[in-house]
């Protein structure tokens, strides 16, 4: 795993410092780090541990418990397919299967070029426009299997990658 550079280390210390008046700040610290870097590797957990006095074991336990925290880097574009009941009933599973097929990765995995991560989401509360997907937070309503190749192609074109 990559070594943490000095600038990143300083930023992590700054994040820990943000919440020093809170009684139990661990999850807030980890959320900020996840948002900033996209993942929370062991080296970072060690820094947080030193700074907060919480053992690495406990931090690791929390990181692996919550699905928002990741030990490995996510792709540049995170495609989240909602599989909540309303989306599922309206064909959300077929949509995620199609992404899986086109990108050649299973849900939870990242493509080898680091461009896409495919995630199965539990209800994002967009049941009125089911089935819904999100790409880096942008919601695509009423997805159909037929639209999937086009969506992937759009993002690939944006990156100048041949479809």
């Amino acid at each position: 795993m990559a070594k943490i550079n000095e600038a990143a280390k300083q930023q992590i210390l700054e994040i820990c410092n943000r919440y020093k008046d809170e009684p139990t700040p661990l999850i807030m610290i980890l959320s900020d780090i996840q948002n900033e870097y996209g993942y929370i590797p062991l080296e970072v957990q060690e820094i947080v541990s030193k700074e907060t006095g919480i053992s690495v074991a406990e931090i690791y336990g929390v990181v692996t418990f919550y699905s928002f925290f990741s030990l490995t880097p996510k792709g540049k574009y995170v495609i989240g397919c909602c599989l909540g009941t309303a989306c599922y009933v309206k064909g959300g599973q077929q949509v995620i299967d199609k992404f899986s097929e086109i990108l050649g990765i299973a849900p939870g995995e990242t493509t080898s070029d680091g461009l896409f991560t495919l995630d199965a989401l539990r209800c994002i509360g967009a049941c009125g426009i089911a089935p819904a997907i999100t790409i880096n937070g942008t919601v695509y309503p009423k997805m159909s299997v037929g639209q999937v190749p086009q969506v992937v192609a759009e993002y690939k074109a944006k990156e100048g990658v041949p479809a």
Partner: protein
Amino acid sequence: MEKFERILEERGLSEKATVNQVGCFGFCSQGPFVKIFPEDTLYRLVKLEDVEEIIEKDIVGGEVVERLLYVEPLTGEKVSKQDDINFYKKQRRVALRGCGVINPEDINEALGMGAFIGLKRALSMTPQEVIDEVLASGIRGRGGAGFPTGRKWQFAKNSVSDIKYVVCNGDEGDPGAFMDRSILEGNPLGVIEGMVIAGYAIGAQNGYFYVRAEYPTAVKRLRIAIAQAREIGLLGENIMGTGFSFDCHLRLGAGAFVCGEETALLNSIMGKRGMPRPRPPFPAVKGLWDQPTIVNNVETLACIPFILREGAEEFAKVGTERSKGTKVFALGGKVNNVGLVEVPMGTTLRELIYDIGGGIPGNKKFKAIQTGGPSGGCLTEEYLDEPIDFDNLVAKGSMMGSGGAIVMDEDNCMVEVAKFYMEFICDESCGKCTPCRIGTKRMLEILTKITEGNGTMEDLAALEELSQTVSTNSLCALGQTAANPINSTISHFRDEYIAHIVDKKCPAHVCKKLMQYVIDPEKCIGCGMCQRGCPASCITRTDYIAPKHKLASMKIDSSKCVKCGACISTCKFGAIEKR
């Protein structure tokens, strides 16, 4: 919205009309909406291209733009006012009050709608009087279990401690439920007011909102609302000059369904793994940082200001004997009017699905309505005239839950639905207790076996036995209710399970291993569209030419077919069917 502002400005109409953003109207399937006051004309499915016409015709000309009005699916009539639409007619808004009317990012609009009058009245009473009022209203927790809110407050008040907390549970995890998100986005101050009243009643000084990180808009608006309330002194020291001090804080979830369970939620606020612990001690005795704490759902707290403002009697006017007031449902699935609806307790399922929901699209046959999310169950046609309340739904084998209501039609396979919920629970089980951790995994394996056509009748018996064990032996509600979807589908749709097991058929043609696509040679005109779209290259031409057609019909090789369904969606002649 930006376009409205721009054109009004360009045409010098900014004085005459103002543009306002509001929270959700609740009628998702017809969005986006634009409403023009004072006429109260509601336009639906508005597109950017329509903006100019609305300004020209309605705002300037005072005429209604007919083509953007809502059309009742049953009668074909056009309706211009929101209150005249069937979807809204049977609703009664208490928790959703203000949502879709006020600008949630402007505290003055909430104040104009009567916000904090309830708090003012509460602060003029003693804490015990406030609790008595809440008890008298008969309100029960809207998060799922339906525990009387007033009694919970009483326990916390009776616990002796200098430090107490109020927690608002906004970890709305049930797939298919989004009322809490909508309330927080539409009228966050209503929930804050409810929390302050709760704090006053039990003697707390601080409150925590625990909101899913999946709801960024709700989080943003809640942050704004808390800051604005602090600014004008409705949060903080010495509220309304009464000497009572209370402040609110916000905590975000990090993606764990089990954190909706109250003890797990408290652990998560305290920065730990969100795992439940045995109760007692209940949070009202020993909660956040070991101090007495009440945990109330968003919708519950949103009802509290109404009770204090209008009085317990007014709240209890609607509802059934043991379930008072209204309940918000997230109506979804196979129903015309998808959206968020608030109806009096005691409304029947039929009214919910047909009168408000506008029935099932495509004239398909109703099969079941699933309530209560992964902890609930399915109710069939025979229960459609049952009134909805906490106890009645439980008696009929389902539950209220947080209020998700997913309608299913003849195209949904109930074994597959049970498997879907079990996958969810299996994924979200925190792993602390054995019955839930291993039991849900085993149940999922059996369901998978059945949907793949490898199940036996012994498997079905094992499934029923296992569901009994998991229900009675799990630590928290997640495990205790995990088997509900299985129990209710087996009891109402045993024939579907048997069809999968004995006949190796999926009656709804959903389970891929048990169905096939077949081309009807009499209907097929031989155009070959299906062949071009087939990713598995399993469609070939036969020698048979049907009478009246010019080309030979096509045929699917089932052994190669991957059952993606591409052919059926390209065929314009309805010649392909599932068997």
